[in-house]
């Protein structure tokens, strides 16, 4: 191409090299964090199969490690992975070095610092209790700053580029950068109580809406768009032929960006969310199938004609498999959004399987494919072992299949058991929740085994790359390239989309508009107007002690296993009590509806059991429910309630709209102590030491006993004090 340029342009050639060191840093970090993320995944998988595997250590319990696993997989592994790919590909696509090397280093080290902070704070239980947005506000601010540094470096590079056209991969990167910024900021808004505790400014239904708008679009704009951009660069590169259809890529980009932002509410079907928002979410989720498959087909067809190389070329093999899994999970996603399918699959392991066919099948395989290309290229050497490459591929693929299939079986089995109603008696066939748990424990073992294979595959890959890098020549002079400066290039009459691409700023604005349209129509009405929530004057804010209990509930991550949302279905109301309504959640900062029912719903647990039941159940769940897989929470009987902070907590909650009176705030400590005394009265009666009064378990019990009580009549079987006395 270049030699076709005219003489005059030759004179304007500029010489430059690429900043490959920053890419190498990100590559290294990806490999390390990937192993950590997968190890954590395997650990929590085994914990569901055998509850003892947290070794009785609170920092290792499921509720605290699950967020660490997801954050490590998404932000540490996939994040570092696509940063590596972006830094490499954008410099080449734009024919210029990154805008500023130092900004790249700040981005790198800042991001690693954030991950280290996450690895420390999450096991400690410092969590905002919103999925994939758990990190407390100071870390949230760090994320914002580092993201801005990345954005400045990115757009700076765009402005000093030497390539006039902006290739489609770059659009996907732009969409990633602007959208993630918007999502992160809007979902993170909170009022701090202290350095380590804050309350979401949104409550209940609104918090749910914002959270899943964020949560789904984290999948869309953190795990999908950057990787699609990488796909558009690395697949042509590996196949050594241009993308199958550039036109299709334009349609792919705009329809994906426009449609994705609407899909979030499919996480909240049959919940207390307004019906019309749910319907919008379903419609757009199903529409998403088209652009997703358009992109997949575009990628796969690029490989046509070089299929035979799949046998020997690890890059192509992994990329093609990644695209296949992408196709599978983007088919499954819309399927799961259909309301009747969702009614069965929601809250079950099926969703967990779906997520992993995306994150392992798509993200991990993409990263692997890209690294098989990138590492030999960057370190100017050859892959250490082809054989290990094959072994890597097969262990990963087989492990993933074990994972997906076991979760399908577990999900469908448990979903069917939950809804089974006896035709003749009209009663639940499995009224005991734990029966449905015990039935799927074998599947948990198989899933954990699949996870071990996937982790093993990763370690094989790491070893192979380690050896590759070790054998690389030590000092290589950076390659130099030449290209004319942008302003020196002949300017053809530009028009239409090409002009648009030539103007990154305007392009970015259009992307922002595309994502804001959906966000505004779907979310703003719910945020600005309380009319969607029919009021219920019986619903009162929690007492100070109950709020302390709720903070323990969020700290321990109970919501990763327990929902607080009873869907309007006969089997749910028979099992848990009457359906949940939006009004019940108006003081919930953050909402705790949950996404997976590893254990039963707790929305109306209040009054179902006596305090003593909860006390013994938290210390040893198996004593009360044989076969339970719930972890032991015995530290709650040693740790003291932090009474002193309660006035500050209530004040912060008042700022976000919970109507606590001045009096309630002033007397928070005394009120809480009084309630603690009465809650523990029932425990000390039966022989528990009186010192239990100021222990955390009392606050937690107070909270659990309040759940669903305001809304009236809970379940059919009521074990209240009166009931028990009457029995005697």
């Amino acid at each position: 191409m270049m030699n076709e340029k005219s003489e005059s342009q030759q004179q304007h050639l500029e010489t430059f090299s690429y900043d490959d060191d920053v890419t190498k840093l990100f590559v290294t970090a990806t490999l390390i964090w990937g192993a950590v993320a997968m190890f954590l995944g395997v650990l929590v998988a085994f914990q569901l199969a055998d509850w003892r595997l947290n070794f009785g250590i609170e920092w290792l319990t499921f509720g605290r490690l699950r967020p660490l696993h997801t954050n490590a997989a998404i932000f540490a592994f996939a994040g570092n992975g696509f940063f590596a790919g972006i830094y490499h590909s954008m410099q080449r696509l734009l024919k210029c070095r990154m805008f500023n090397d130092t900004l790249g280093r700040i981005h790198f080290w800042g991001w690693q610092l954030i991950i280290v902070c996450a690895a420390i704070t999450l096991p400690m239980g410092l969590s905002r209790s919103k999925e994939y947005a758990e990190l407390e506000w100071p870390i949230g601010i760090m994320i914002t700053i580092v993201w801005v540094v990345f954005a400045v470096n990115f757009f700076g590079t765009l402005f000093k580029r030497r390539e006039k056209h902006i290739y489609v991969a770059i659009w996907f990167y732009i969409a990633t950068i602007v959208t993630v910024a918007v999502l992160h900021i809007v979902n993170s808004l909170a009022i701090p109580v202290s350095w380590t505790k804050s309350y979401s400014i949104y409550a209940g239904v609104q918090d749910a809406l914002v959270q899943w708008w964020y949560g789904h679009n984290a999948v869309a704009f953190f795990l999908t768009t950057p990787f699609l951009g990488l796909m558009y660069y690395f697949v042509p590169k590996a196949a050594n032929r241009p993308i199958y259809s550039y036109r299709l890529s334009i349609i792919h980009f705009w329809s994906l960006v426009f449609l994705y932002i609407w899909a979030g509410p499919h996480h909240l079907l049959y919940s207390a969310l307004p019906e019309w928002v749910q319907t919008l979410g379903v419609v757009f989720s199903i529409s998403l199938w088209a652009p997703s498959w358009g992109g997949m087909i575009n990628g796969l067809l690029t490989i046509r004609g070089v299929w035979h190389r799949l046998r020997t070329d690890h890059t192509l093999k992994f990329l093609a498999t990644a695209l296949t899994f992408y196709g599978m999970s983007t088919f499954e996603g819309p399927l799961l959004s259909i309301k009747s399918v969702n009614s069965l699959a929601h809250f079950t392991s099926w969703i967990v399987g779906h997520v992993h066919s995306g994150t392992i099948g798509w993200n991990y395989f993409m990263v692997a494919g890209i690294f098989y290309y990138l590492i030999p290229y960057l370190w100017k050497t050859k892959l250490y072992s082809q054989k290990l490459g094959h072994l890597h591929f097969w262990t990963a693929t087989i492990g993933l299949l074990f994972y997906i299939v076991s979760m399908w079986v577990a999900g469908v089995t448990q979903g069917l058991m939950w809804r089974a109603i006896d035709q003749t008696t009209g009663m639940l066939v499995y009224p005991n929740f734990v029966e449905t748990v015990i039935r799927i424990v074998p599947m948990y073992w198989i899933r954990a085994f699949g996870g071990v294979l996937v982790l093993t595959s990763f370690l094989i890959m790491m070893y192979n790359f380690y050896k590759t890098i070790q054998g690389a020549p030590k000092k290589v002079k950076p390659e130099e390239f030449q290209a004319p400066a942008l302003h020196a290039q002949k300017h053809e009459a530009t028009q239409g989309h090409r002009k648009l691409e030539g103007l990154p700023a305007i392009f970015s604005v259009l992307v922002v508009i595309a994502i804001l349209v959906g966000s505004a129509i779907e979310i703003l009405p719910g945020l600005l107007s309380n009319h969607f929530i029919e009021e219920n004057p019986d619903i009162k804010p929690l007492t100070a002690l109950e709020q302390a209990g709720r903070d323990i509930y969020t700290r321990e991550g109970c919501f990763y296993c327990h929902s607080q949302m009873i869907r309007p279905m006969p089997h749910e109301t028979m099992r848990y009590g009457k359906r949940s309504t939006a009004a019940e959640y108006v003081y919930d900062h953050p909402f705790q509806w949950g996404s997976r029912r590893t254990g039963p719903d707790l929305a109306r647990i209040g009054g179902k059991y006596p305090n003593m039941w909860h006390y013994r159940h938290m210390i040893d769940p198996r004593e009360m429910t044989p076969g339970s897989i719930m972890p032991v929470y015995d530290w709650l009987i040693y740790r003291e309630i932090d009474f002193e902070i309660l006035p500050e907590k209530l004040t912060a909650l008042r700022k976000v709209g919970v109507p606590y009176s001045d009096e309630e705030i002033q007397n928070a400590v005394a009120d809480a102590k009084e309630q603690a005394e009465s809650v523990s009265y029932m425990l000390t009666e039966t022989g528990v030491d009186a010192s239990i009064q100021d222990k955390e378990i009392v606050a937690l019990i107070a909270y659990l006993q309040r759940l669903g009580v305001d809304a009236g009549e809970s379940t059919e079987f009521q074990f209240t004090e009166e009931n028990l006395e009457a029995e005697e």
Partner: protein
Amino acid sequence: MKSEVLTQATNLWPQIFALFIFIAVFVGACLWIFRKNSAKVYDEMANIPLEKGQKR
């Protein structure tokens, strides 16, 4: 408000209008992307990843 929105659901015109806009924009974009004489430009762009920049 919920019932307000639901009453709107019987009013088909906004929905048909929205549908029309969506389809019109989509079809318009496709027509434009597949416009005549654009093949050369798209080929050029599709080849960007395969260019290396001129080595010194």
